[in-house]
């Protein structure tokens, strides 16, 4: 039973995992292979009019959001893990909270809250400041701001967990050996945590590429909105499918680059002692508190207060979307459980057969859907399942209109998160740990129960919650595939803002944020203790 990295996976294991990967890719393949004629002139129109602008805009967004998220996420994690300053205990969890907001909710708050007739802009003009100098959020820089605020927590959370695990010994050693703080950070800390911040960056870039709701609200054109325009405005699903496939190629490229860099990351062992915090004094402490607080205000506090101020207090009872809350819990919960189970399967197999390239390829394939716009995913799933229905007859009745279709689409979208999360969780279980348990005479079943599970648990809980939040926030695929009676909070926000009912939208938006906050809080608590925990008496 000893691990042998040289051993390739058995055909059965390969078959099962490839089967899962294919199921998760099949609808996309179906979309690609389905013959569709693009009406003449449309491609020329895209090439000459839209693509240059859209590609430039998408590129600037990716670069801007990626860079800003890395900067904010890494700096914030370093600050709270390794330093003590006033408010640190409060700010440390608060910095993760923006993860609870879908980008389209934050965009809605910023657009409505910074509109010309809102109190902030009115106050600005009353001060005698020029109206044109008031920040316009419906702009490229506004889009970078909104997306960064919702996405940097990925980098922050992963980086924070990684820093907590590693302790401070290496950094302190580098400092003792004469390296300055910057040099020690760049040459010791960043390489050692590369897997964490690269993983976070990957999530940030893919989310940015796939965002639809916020871009619509902010009036930005990206590849995703162009896919939607091709389908809805220009009326060609074939054109949309071809664009989506081109996007997929871009995603594969991004993932390949990240994988190549991440592969060279040196594995860092868990520290025995929690990292030491350096107490900041005077002006530095003030600056640290101010910077962290500014991020929290922009990303959580102000949006929450805005939403609260828009609540229709008088008829709050009628406005409560109970059914949508239930829908959200079931749909996102199912997706999370399945995604993490699949993720464990892949992570365990990859761990046992690290050299098996076929398995690596299957894993990559299973996570591909992460950057496919939800709407395209929905079309793909729906066509595939309804074709299956027609082919299989009454056996498969309801396949494309039931909960299965929606959960499959969400799985395809977010399996990547489940894979990353499960792999990270399993990484905490060093082989030596299980070997020690074996040497101590624990039988295999109890080894897993007594040693394996407690070590894995925090990581798996984190993975579950990450997928849950993602699935809960998903909009376009849910919109298209939800069965009768299965409205979710995201749908409520969408239908209400879409009709310009901004006040009414505040109720589901707030619920979405609050439901989203709970997993993030749990996530923070579970990541709080460094290293594998002791278990049992």
């Amino acid at each position, binding site marked *: 039973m000893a691990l042998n990295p040289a051993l390739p996976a058995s055909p059965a294991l390969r078959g099962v995992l490839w089967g899962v990967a294919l199921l998760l890719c099949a609808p996309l393949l179906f979309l690609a292979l389905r013959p569709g004629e693009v009406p003449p002139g449309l491609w020329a129109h895209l090439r000459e009019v839209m693509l240059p602008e859209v590609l430039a805009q998408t590129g600037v967004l990716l670069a801007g959001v990626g860079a800003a998220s890395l900067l904010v996420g890494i700096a914030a994690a370093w600050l709270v893990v390794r330093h003590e300053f006033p408010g640190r205990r409060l700010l440390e969890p608060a910095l993760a909270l923006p993860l609870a907001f879908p980008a389209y909710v934050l965009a809605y708050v910023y657009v*409505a809250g910074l*509109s010309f007739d809102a109190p902030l802009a009115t106050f600005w003009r009353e001060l005698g400041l020029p109206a044109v100098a008031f920040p316009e959020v*419906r702009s490229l820089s506004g889009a970078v701001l909104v997306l960064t605020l919702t996405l940097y927590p990925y980098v922050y959370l992963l980086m924070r967990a990684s820093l907590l695990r590693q302790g401070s010994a290496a950094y302190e050693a580098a400092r003792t050996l004469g390296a300055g703080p910057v040099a020690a950070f760049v040459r010791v800390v960043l390489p050692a945590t590369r897997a964490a911040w690269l993983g976070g960056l990957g999530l940030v870039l893919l989310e940015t590429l796939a965002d639809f709701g916020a871009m619509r609200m*902010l*009036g930005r054109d990206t590849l995703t909105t162009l896919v939607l*325009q091709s389908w809805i405005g220009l*009326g060609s*699903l074939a054109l949309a499918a071809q664009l989506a496939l081109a996007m997929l190629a871009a995603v594969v490229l991004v993932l390949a680059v990240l994988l190549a860099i991440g592969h060279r990351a040196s594995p860092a062992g868990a520290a025995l002692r929690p990292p030491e915090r350096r107490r900041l004094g005077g002006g530095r402490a003030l600056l640290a508190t101010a910077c962290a607080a500014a991020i929290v205000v922009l990303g959580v506090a102000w949006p929450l207060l805005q939403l609260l101020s828009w609540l229709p207090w008088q008829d709050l009872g009628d406005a409560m979307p109970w059914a949508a809350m239930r829908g959200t*819990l079931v749909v996102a919960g199912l997706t999370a459980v399945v995604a993490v189970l699949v993720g464990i399967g892949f992570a365990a197999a990859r761990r046992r057969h690290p050299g098996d390239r076929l398995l690596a390829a299957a894993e990559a394939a299973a996570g591909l859907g992460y950057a496919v716009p939800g709407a395209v995913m929905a079309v793909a799933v729906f066509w595939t399942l*309804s074709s299956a229905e027609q082919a299989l007859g009454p056996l498969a009745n309801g396949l494309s209109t039931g909960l299965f279709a929606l959960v499959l689409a969400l799985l395809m979208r977010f399996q990547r998160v489940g894979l990353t999360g499960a792999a990270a969780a399993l990484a905490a279980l060093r082989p030596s740990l299980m070997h020690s348990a074996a040497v101590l005479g624990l039988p295999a079943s109890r080894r897993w129960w007594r040693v394996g599970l407690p070590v894995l648990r925090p990581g798996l809980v984190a993975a579950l919650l990450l997928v849950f939040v993602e699935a809960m926030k998903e909009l376009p695929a849910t919109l298209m595939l939800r069965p009768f009676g299965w409205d979710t909070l995201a749908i409520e926000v969408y239908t209400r803002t879409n009709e310009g009912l901004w006040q009414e939208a505040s109720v589901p938006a707030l619920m979405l944020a609050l439901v989203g906050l709970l997993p993030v809080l749990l996530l923070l608590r579970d990541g709080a203790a460094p290293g594998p925990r002791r278990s049992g008496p």
Partner: protein
Amino acid sequence: MTPNRLLPLAAALAALFLAACARPAEDAAAPDAAPAAAPPIGGTLVIYSERRYPFLEPVFKAYTAQTGIRIETRVDGADALIERIAAEGATTPADLLITVDAGNLWQAAERGILRNIASPVLEANVPANLRDAEGRWFGLSERARTLMHVPERVDAATLSTYEALAAPEWKGRLCLRSSAKVYNQSLVATMIERLGAEATREVLKGWVANLAAPPFADDTLLLRAIAAGQCEVGITNTYYLGRLLQEDPAFPVRPFWVDQGGAGVHVNISGAGVIAHSDRPAEAQALLEWLSGEAVQQQFAALNFEYPVKPGVALDPIVAAWGEFRADPVDIAVAGRRQAEAVMLMNEAGWR
């Protein structure tokens, strides 16, 4: 520590999972049970609707009370609904499709998912330019898209046509909604029909050059921007103004009825068609006819401050206060026929 907290979570998830599994079974059982129970009275009509449920609920409830027929509504974007109906083919549960833009209804008819209906009732109640010539879809309410201004600030005498807003004197004074919204695409489609593509392109370029702010994501924000003075004139649907006036009677924006000596105000419809593969086409048609009747027309339009399609039906007081107008008599199907062309022109003009 954590297991204690996780157990309830896990239990809750498990319970919800069971609830989730139980639910489709109920739904699946319903169609078998219903016809056996009472074929002529009762049963269920399934409506795929782009129109939001609150604007349908009161009339549907009244219909159920009158006839015993239950109505199930699924709200979604028109394109998603049309793809869905097309993909469901003969197995579709849908009986009626309701959308909020003629372009969408035209699209649905093109895809062959709507049934031809010959109904003297609908032909009498719905004007010819607001329904399909082959009887596949019918307008249920009319929505006017016209110029909006604050009369005290922008004299109505300075306003005339949609095209006139392209003139240099409006530089930095005009506000528009995003070109992604189908209402704008339909407006541009009718302009292409009337002015030709070249002239329309020039108008759109002029509009874009005159913008006071980036295009807005919805008409409500646009109206509020006009009220606050960010823009002096804009183009929106009138019912958004109706909602704002209901909340705040002092809201200063008013519609200007455009081009009354010429083409008239661009009107679009919300409308419906019976699904080709509906299991109960007669019942669906009966509901459609009922919706076009005088009493229902009044309520259906008033729920969202729209205009009834049936001539002579009373208006909501807020809507009536804006006065009467001459509507562009163009066949509204052009919104669908020229939609792709309109989107391309808007792209070329830089309207985002």
